[in-house]
């Protein structure tokens, strides 16, 4: 046989130094990564905002720049003053005349003693200099904080977080993401019973299995590697998209939470994770924007097989795509190696998408709290169902927990239960494990084309 030349994925390593990430042209991703890496939970980006005194902008901006020897970009140089931050290149500061504010890069500000800690001279055109803060989408965090309020009342998010959440809506809109109303269904039940409705429906909490000795690969947007709920866990990670594994999207952290999250999260947080002792293999095959790059999904599948991951969970796909021979081949390779690939059917209320439509990959549909197929859940080629509406799980810091809906959420319920079953017997692998999951599933009243053999059940 010819010499093997396997392209090795880059393993997770720290990214750029914090200082170089707080330029005026730095992306939010770069700054977030830098903040997480320096263990900074102050929500500050490392850049500063100088607010000019009223009417002082025109008089103030140019002398301010000249006096400080700064390279300044002016919003008026951009059409409609829509500053594309990645295009301000090496400017030390960006001036926004319409609001009387200048954004100053971290290095430039520190070099000139212009940080928030420094006193602003009374005769200056500048009223104040303040740190710039990150802003996040709030659909999920609002829901979580409401849960806490309804429960024991702790922790209190505090005033700073409330402001944070308000600001977040703006950014969510800028990013083109909807800000849906948070759903609360099932929450009261979760708090009362100490576990999410999904875990209860799958009969997870009474079981004694933990997924110990089982490797679960989750091919997704990565994982928040510093999330406290995963401290001390065996985590192997690799990226296939040219970005660090650190999840800046939230989808991957949510899916890993359901399949492999802890048995007893801290405080009043209900149990949301299934195989709490499984080894986690986090393959980042989707970028922080949530899409795949080139052959990243296939490279991730290959990696999971090389690492002999007993269960390979894929909450991803392409809608209205016919069966792809390459996904079928990958699924077959997994089965030949005694491994099981599980994929989400899809959410466009149409026929099952790829890769779940491949005969060698187990397709998962989503049901709601009434165990009725979710309106969005794809149909046709469906093997089994999992809870997939209003699912509570982990999301990246600082939000930490949130709700999501989709066959994406149903899939890790199946993957987690598969890991528990695999732990019960070394013979339950690959196709044998596939058959066991279907045989043990709880029968539902909906047709097999919607829910397959029924709702996945833990041993």
């Amino acid at each position, binding site marked *: *046989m*010819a010499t*093997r*030349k*396997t*392209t090795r994925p880059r393993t997770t390593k720290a990214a750029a130094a914090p200082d170089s990430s707080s330029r005026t042209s730095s992306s939010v991703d770069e700054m977030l990564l830098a903040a997480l890496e320096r263990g900074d939970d102050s929500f500050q980006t490392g850049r500063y905002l100088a607010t000019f005194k009223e009417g002082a902008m025109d008089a103030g901006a140019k002398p301010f720049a000249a006096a400080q020897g700064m390279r300044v970009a002016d919003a008026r140089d951009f059409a409609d003053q829509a500053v594309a931050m990645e295009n301000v290149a090496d400017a030390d500061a960006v001036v926004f005349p319409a609001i009387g504010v200048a954004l100053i890069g971290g290095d430039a500000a520190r070099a000139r003693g212009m940080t928030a800690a420094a006193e602003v001279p009374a005769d200056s055109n500048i009223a104040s200099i303040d740190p710039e803060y990150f802003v*996040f*989408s709030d*659909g*999920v965090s609002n829901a979580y904080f409401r849960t806490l309020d309804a429960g024991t009342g702790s922790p209190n998010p505090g005033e700073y977080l409330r402001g944070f959440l308000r600001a977040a809506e703006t950014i*969510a809109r800028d*990013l*083109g*993401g*909807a800000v*849906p109303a948070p*759903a609360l269904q099932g929450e009261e039940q979760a708090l009362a019973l100490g576990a999410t409705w999904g875990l209860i429906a799958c009969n997870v909490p009474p079981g004694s299995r933990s997924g110990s000795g089982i490797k679960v690969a989750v091919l997704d*947007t990565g994982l928040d590697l510093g999330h406290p709920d995963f401290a001390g866990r065996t985590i192997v990670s690799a990226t296939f998209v040219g970005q660090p594994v650190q999840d*800046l*999207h*939230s*989808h991957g952290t949510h899916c890993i939470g359901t399949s492999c999250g802890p048995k007893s999260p801290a405080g009043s947080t209900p149990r949301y994770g299934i195989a709490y002792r499984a080894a986690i293999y986090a393959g980042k095959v*989707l970028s922080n924007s*949530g*899409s*795949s790059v*080139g*052959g990243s*999904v*296939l*490279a991730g*599948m*290959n990696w999971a*097989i*090389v690492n002999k991951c007993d269960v390979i969970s894929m*909450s*991803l*796909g*392409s809608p209205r*795509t016919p069966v*792809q*021979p*390459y996904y079928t*081949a*990958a699924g077959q*390779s997994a089965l030949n190696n005694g491994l099981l690939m599980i994929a*989400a059917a*899809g*959410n466009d209320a149409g026929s099952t998408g*790829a890769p779940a439509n491949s005969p060698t990959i187990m397709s998962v549909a989503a049901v709601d709290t009434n165990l009725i197929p979710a309106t*969005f859940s794809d149909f046709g080629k469906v093997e089994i169902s999992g809870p997939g509406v209003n699912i509570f799980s982990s*999301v990246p810091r600082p939000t930490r927990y*949130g*709700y*999501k*809906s*989709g*066959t*994406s*959420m149903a899939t890790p319920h199946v993957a987690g239960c598969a890991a528990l079953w695999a732990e019960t017997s070394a013979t339950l692998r690959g196709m044998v494990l596939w058959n066991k999951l279907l045989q043990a599933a709880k029968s539902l009243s909906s047709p097999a084309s919607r829910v397959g053999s029924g709702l996945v059940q833990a041993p």
Partner: protein
Amino acid sequence: MATKKKDWVVTTSGDRPLEEVAKELRKSGFKVGEVLHEVGLITGEGGDDVAEKLRKIKGVTDVSANAGADVGPPDSTDTW
């Protein structure tokens, strides 16, 4: 004129060493991306004309455009 380049996935039968197949793909003008031994697949880039040539190579069972995958925008509550 050459056709527009696309991402392709080449599925193989497994009865020829994958590197040998990859070599032939390159000779046909295919820009090989990754050679994935465990799954017997080769990813890469080329025009429709190149893809057509690849389909005739011994050991190649399928050449399909890479469908890609998606889970929607960051932090959304509704996903794939």
